[in-house]
């Protein structure tokens, strides 16, 4: 067990060695950093717009939460695509699996590394936003935020970090799609399509069901992947903690299927 853990840790280390040197990874990280910095910059500038326009300190991380809540799952999907694409496209899965390496080890290392990167992105974003908020926030800020802003640091933190499991869930879904199809392109396109479809079709369907048929469809969509993740981020009338088991179940299911497929399958030709 200890040997296996050490082996996975070793894989994570060298996986990071490769990922950190990939131009695509740097571009994606830049694409996350730029909007975060821009949002904070605008929030700081609003402070100078006039009396009463300043934001309270905890509103800064809340603004970042609003952005990450939307962008986070896409970020996770693209990161997953990057980390799996090379091994399938370049055939380097064979290089990784040579020397009798159990197939689940590099796969688990990849999943864990994307998870770690996401945790770091969330943590750094929170730290940055909270710091800027503490420096530039106005205790008497009165600017109202849309979407039912959380009040107080605790509530903001719960929503902020409640959106992280959603990204991890979509990461594991994208990994599963990559493993099934042996194609990162397929995985990322389908996962992104699911994300877009969920965020556009669900609200429309719920609205039509309520307005036309007076049917509470949202109650039934609540436990779907999108519903559970949204609920965990505090976007449901039920307390977000109720959604934690469902989120965990989705993540576990996707990751377990991914590992099972990679472990059981032959590593063929150039496409892994």
């Amino acid at each position, binding site marked *: 067990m200890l040997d296996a853990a050490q082996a996975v840790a*070793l894989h994570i280390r*060298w996986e990071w060695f490769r990922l950190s040197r990939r131009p695509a990874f740097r571009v994606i990280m830049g694409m996350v950093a730029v909007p975060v910095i821009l949002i904070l910059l605008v929030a700081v500038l609003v402070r100078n717009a006039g009396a009463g326009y300043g934001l309270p300190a905890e509103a800064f991380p809340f603004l970042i939460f609003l952005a990450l809540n939307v962008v986070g799952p896409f970020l996770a999907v693209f990161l997953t695509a990057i980390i799996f694409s090379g091994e399938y496209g370049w055939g380097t899965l*064979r290089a990784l699996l040579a*020397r*009798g*390496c159990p197939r689940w080890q*590099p796969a688990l290392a990849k999943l864990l590394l994307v998870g770690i990167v996401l945790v770091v992105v969330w943590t750094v974003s929170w730290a940055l936003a909270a710091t800027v908020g503490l420096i530039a926030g106005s205790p008497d800020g009165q600017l109202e935020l849309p979407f039912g802003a959380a009040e107080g640091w605790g509530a903001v933190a719960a929503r902020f970090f409640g959106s992280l499991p959603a990204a991890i869930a979509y990461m594991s879904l994208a990994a599963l799609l990559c493993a099934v199809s042996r194609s990162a392109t397929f995985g990322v396109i389908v996962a992104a399509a699911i994300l877009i479809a969920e965020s556009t079709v669900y609200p429309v369907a719920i609205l039509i069901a309520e307005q036309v048929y007076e049917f509470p469809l949202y109650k039934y969509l609540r436990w779907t992947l999108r519903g559970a993740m949204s609920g965990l981020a505090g976007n449901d009338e039920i307390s977000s903690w109720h959604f934690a088991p469902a989120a965990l179940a989705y993540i576990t299911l996707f990751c377990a299927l991914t590992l099972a497929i990679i472990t059981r399958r032959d590593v063929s*030709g150039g496409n892994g």
Partner: protein
Amino acid sequence: MANNSTMTIASAVALSGVSKHFGRVRAVDDVTLDIPAGGVYGLLGPNGSGKTTLLSMLAGFLRPTSGSIALLGQSGPTGQRDALQRTGALIGGPTFWPYLSCRDNLRCLQGTYATGGGDAEIDNLLATVNLDGDAASRKFRACSTGMKQRLGIAGALLGNPSLLILDEPTNGLDPAGIIEVRQLIRSLVGENRRTIILASHLLNEVEQVCDRVGVMAGGRLLYSGPVAELGAPAQVAIRTTDDALAAELLAAGGWELTAQPDAGLEIAAVPGREWEITRDLANAGVYIAEMRSTGGSLEAGFMEVTGGPERLDA
């Protein structure tokens, strides 16, 4: 990784009834094979004969549909995993991360395999495959085909493996590169009596580099043994002005007629005495219109074993 290259093992590879089916296609069909430790074993066969599939099973990339595999004297899942830690493989072309340099690619694999050795081993391997100096810092995607192939061999040599599996390592190389790689392969055997399995469809490559050879066609192993024994006996084929009389004269003169095709004769050659055929026939007034050597080469032996081009095409 333990360096067990000095361990004495009778068989480097022992296969028993190994088959691999892809749906209805029998890529490898009931192969039983014993490859002694030490030396270069050539796996010869036309494209699609099952060589790469067989090697992929040895390297652990494919699971056999049936049969058992023992590597370096170890079998079973755990034993095979241990043996694979001492097995380097280059199968289906070199696969590396294109945005990393040659050196970083090797570092990455060395770290992942936990073979130890550090920078000294990488420097040594890069020098062995002539990729030291500026070439070491070149990104893999910017390397020539020959450089990529040599880096693939270096990657397979990480950790000084006891068994090396090379699938068509000279593919895509220019003539100078081919000679270089063949010399490299021969030199690798010398170190610690390593076993090298070399798959190729190039007969002369196998003839020059290998001690023993296995011939595959249609997924089946048709021959396995010393290279020298695969070559068919040398023969002399002649066409004369009177083949019937020539046959009588040669038989009377003690020559062994191996076959009498529709036109001409085939005679078991005795090296250095072919001129006597010309003399004996000319003295009897029979003159040779055409004379050529047949057989005696690996090519002839290969064709004999595989049943010729018609059977290979079938």
